[in-house]
């Protein structure tokens, strides 16, 4: 039973790629949190990241591979699952599954759209409103770029909506990783579910705070 075609193998690949992406999200969250301390901090943080120069592209290629695996199998597995359950019940009750779990494909696709926009905006800096200036120390002014970008109500709303999607996706997804790679049993299950829920809430609160604080002029 191959990893690439099998029922269980493809879920393992989804889980492993998902785990790498969640790890990235955690790192990204810690980095972004410097914005709450002040412009100097996030600019300094961005400058430090730049010093990792040689590692940047291999890292990006790796993350792109993870995303591609995850999206490809996410879509194909979902289509298969729909095919395996074509006739719906007239009355259907779901005793244990969650809204978050049953909407993985939709929150996933929204996250994909978000990723494309987010990378164009703040990584490749080619969306129309991007402000590219340097700060007093001559560093690239990430802070000003973020504040200018997220002052737009539509953009900020899209960011918050996407973070709701990330919340739902990880709410189900994080505990799911441990089950899919076989690291779970009846004693660990409640713990993994709890870890997943807490992480999802932290992602939602911290990431959404950035556009919300910018829109309300707390960060300016």
């Amino acid at each position: 039973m191959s990893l690439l075609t099998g029922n269980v193998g493809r879920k393992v690949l989804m889980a492993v790629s998902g785990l790498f992406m969640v790890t990235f999200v955690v790192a990204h969250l810690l980095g972004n949190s410097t914005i709450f301390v002040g412009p100097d901090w996030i600019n300094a943080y961005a400058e430090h990241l730049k010093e990792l120069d040689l590692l940047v592209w291999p890292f990006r290629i790796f993350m792109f591979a993870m995303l591609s695996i995850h999206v490809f199998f996410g879509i194909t597995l979902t289509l298969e699952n729909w095919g395996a359950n074509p006739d719906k019940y007239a009355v259907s009750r779901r005793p244990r599954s969650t809204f978050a779990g049953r909407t993985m494909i939709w929150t996933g696709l929204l996250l994909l759209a978000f990723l494309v926009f987010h990378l164009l905006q703040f990584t490749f800096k080619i969306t129309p409103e991007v402000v590219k200036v340097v700060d007093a120390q001559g560093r690239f002014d990430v802070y000003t770029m973020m504040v200018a970008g997220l002052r737009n109500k539509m953009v900020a709303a899209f960011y918050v909506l996407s973070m709701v999607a990330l919340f739902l996706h990880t709410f189900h997804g994080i505990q799911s990783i441990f089950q899919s790679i076989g690291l779970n049993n009846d004693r660990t299950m409640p713990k993994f579910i709890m870890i997943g829920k807490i992480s999802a809430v932290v992602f939602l609160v911290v990431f959404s705070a950035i556009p919300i604080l910018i829109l309300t002029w707390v960060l300016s």
Partner: protein
Amino acid sequence: MSEHTAHGTMTLKLIVWRQKGPTEPGRFETYLARNITEHHSFLEMLDVVNEDLINDGKEPIVFDHDCREGICGTCSQVINGLAHGGQTRTTVCQLHMRTFKDGDTIYIEPWRAKAFPILKDLMVDRNALERIIQAGAYTSVNTGAAPDGNSILISKEDADYSMDAAECIGCGACVAACPNGAAMLFTGAKVSQFAALPQGQVEARERVFSMIEVMQKCGFGNCANHYDCQAVCPKDIDVKFIARLNREYLKALVM
């Protein structure tokens, strides 16, 4: 008898899936279940309704059943949206009418999954589960003299774990309840029951590979870790056995 309602009994409205054959279109029909006592099991209630239907010259409702004591796993109905009716650790045959009230409306549907084609009314073809069993849920032993009782020692924990998995009666409720029509709880239980025992080690690798392969070929979906299966399982088979299946698969890959 059907027109009369005996004192102290219940009358219920049943909305039942009727389908003449595998390729015929199905539809819901409404029936009144009269003279039902709280002591009737759900299947006995259907027997009463079927007698009325026969007396009226109509086709009785076809449903699977055999032991009527919760061990054979043939009774297979989704009742008001839940496989086996939603009472914990209960098969349809063990569900009693005391869990319903006079005047209740009850929806009764067959298991629905691509791998379980409907044969007639509430009866589905669950042979796909047999094919998964045939693919590897056995151990090969030489016939001959009976082996010594305690020649292979097994710890209490392992024996209990294996027995917990072996409690599965193969009713298919896990598939019926799964949003993806997956058979992972069933297959997980069958794989785990051998994985925990020394006798299961010899064929461990081929077992997990071929059972997963056949499961996929039969048209079951993929597990997305929703866990609705455990909630409806009449034997409360734990989803830890799905994790065990995944673990056994990964072990087999590197073996």
